[in-house]
């Protein structure tokens, strides 16, 4: 990434954009893990995920049933 000074300079914006995108992606993954209600996966799978992550969801303070 930081091969030379010019590389750093010209890469600065894409790196920032990539960082922001990755951070948002990580946060969305957390949301998926804790609040997936059958939006992206089948209801059965969502139900299983919901039950598997259930104690963690409560402990992390995320609203549940």
């Amino acid at each position, binding site marked *: *990434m*930081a091969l*030379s*000074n010019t590389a*750093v*300079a010209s890469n*600065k914006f894409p*790196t*920032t954009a*990539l*960082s*922001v995108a*990755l*951070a*948002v992606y*990580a*946060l969305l*993954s*957390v949301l998926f*893990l*804790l*609040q997936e209600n059958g939006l992206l996966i089948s*209801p059965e799978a969502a*139900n*299983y995920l*919901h*039950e*598997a*992550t*259930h*104690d*963690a*969801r*409560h*402990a*992390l*303070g*995320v*609203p*549940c*049933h």
Partner: protein
Amino acid sequence: MVSRTLGRTVGHGAVAGAAAGGVGATALYWLVEPSIRAAIAIEEAGGPAGEAGGHSHAAGGDHAGSHGLAADALVPRDEQVVFALVTVLLVGILIGIAFALAHRVLGTRLPGKSPAGSAMTLAGLGFVAFTLAPAIIVPANPPAVGDPATVSLRAVTYLGTIVCAVALTTIVTALARAKELAPRSRAVAATALGIVGSLVLVWALPNAADPVPANVPADLVWEFRVGSLTQLGLMWLVLGAVFAYLTPSQVVTRTSPPTPMRIGRRRHLQPASVAEV
């Protein structure tokens, strides 16, 4: 710009997040699980004829029969506990990665005299915006308390609170560091905005918290909330501390020659090229 590659930032974030997740999982096991167990026992005892909250599961459609009812549980109780620990670990890693990237992007705009110091500051701000604020507006509840009918409102309020709290925290922090103002006015303005902003948020956000049903002891809810907050507080603390430990202390500007990573690490060397913090 902190002198490490993007991959390294993500790696350090993941390691710090895994440490936070590990500590969080331990805290969950020792501090929160006992209350969850007690709450599930109450849930199972209270049938449709039970007290105020006892009806929730029987009436809860897709939720019915779940949450540890031994016979027809989708995920057995002991597996649920293991999954809980794994989930906390995963959430820790993902939050750690997001944290590291935020630290990288914000850089010297964060308060703190060194990247390690600003990592601790960011963890503190993260605790306030992502944990404390939603805990005040929509407090954490053990199973047996929530009403399935209000879960959507609570979830939206929870996320909305985090978004508003992140915005307020950002503005207050920026105001506290505004170069245009004299140091004293900065402090007064930031404090005033913090207080007024918090009051406005508490007033404006929907009152979505469910009442605690009569068959759930207040002690149990209290213990659960203290346990949950302790777990989350520990996670932010460990995340900030481990990330700070891994962070190279030199902030290299674009014009300075490349500096070997290890030299000056955590030694608070402040070369002339270090950006003013």
